């Protein structure tokens, strides 16, 4: 599998709201800053599956949907509104870093034979 590096974002609150509506995930940690701060976060955060979907989208843009068999994403840090991610290919997958260079997602990508 040969993937090129790509960028995601900056991620915005409207994307987070739309994603929450589309998948019916209304956890207040994605919508309510006060609630998010009470959980120790600086603001609301993107849904993990939104971050995964955005990274996956960069892969789909390169290889399409039909070759994909699986995607295993591990979330290593919260993604905040305004974050722009740099996604780089790794052995067997991709890794996404935020503007501070912190890894936020590590994923394996499985292709059909």
């Amino acid at each position, binding site marked *: 599998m040969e993937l090129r590096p790509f960028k995601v974002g900056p991620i915005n609150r409207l994307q987070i709201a739309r994603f929450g509506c589309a998948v019916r995930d209304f956890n207040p940690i994605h919508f309510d800053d006060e609630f998010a701060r009470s959980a120790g976060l600086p603001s609301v955060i993107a849904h993990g599956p939104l971050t995964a979907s955005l990274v996956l*989208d960069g892969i789909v843009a390169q290889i399409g949907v039909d070759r994909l068999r699986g995607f295993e994403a591990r*979330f290593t840090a*919260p993604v905040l509104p305004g974050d722009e991610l740099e996604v780089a290919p790794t052995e067997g997958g991709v890794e996404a870093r935020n503007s501070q260079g912190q890894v936020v997602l590590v994923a394996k990508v499985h292709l059909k034979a």
Partner: protein
Amino acid sequence: MDESVKGKVLFEVEDVLSPQQIETLAAAIGTSAGKETATLVPYFGPSIAGERALVDALNIDLRKALLGTQSYEWVRPFRPGERVRVKVYVDDAYTKGNLRFATVVSEFKDEQGELICRQRTVFIEREG
């Protein structure tokens, strides 16, 4: 988090994947490939039965919970307008140190009972 739910089916639901849902998701993704990508990820299994269903079933404290992993295994992309049957169950639940883990599996099948997609979601809840 309630570890006694290990092995339990949390909910089974039927849903029709509306074209509008794909459009909303594509708009959230916001790229030229978004509509195609949306056919891979139109659902988040744990939230498919409504806002509180999983939270109440697992007794999760949302202020202490986070998502550890989200995995997708596809047989094929979803098709806008198709009816899907979804089963969501707890594959594992355990405590390690001061963290509680729950692995929730969501299986999406078509009307013929053929698997479309399987999602595996790991929730982590901090103690205290």
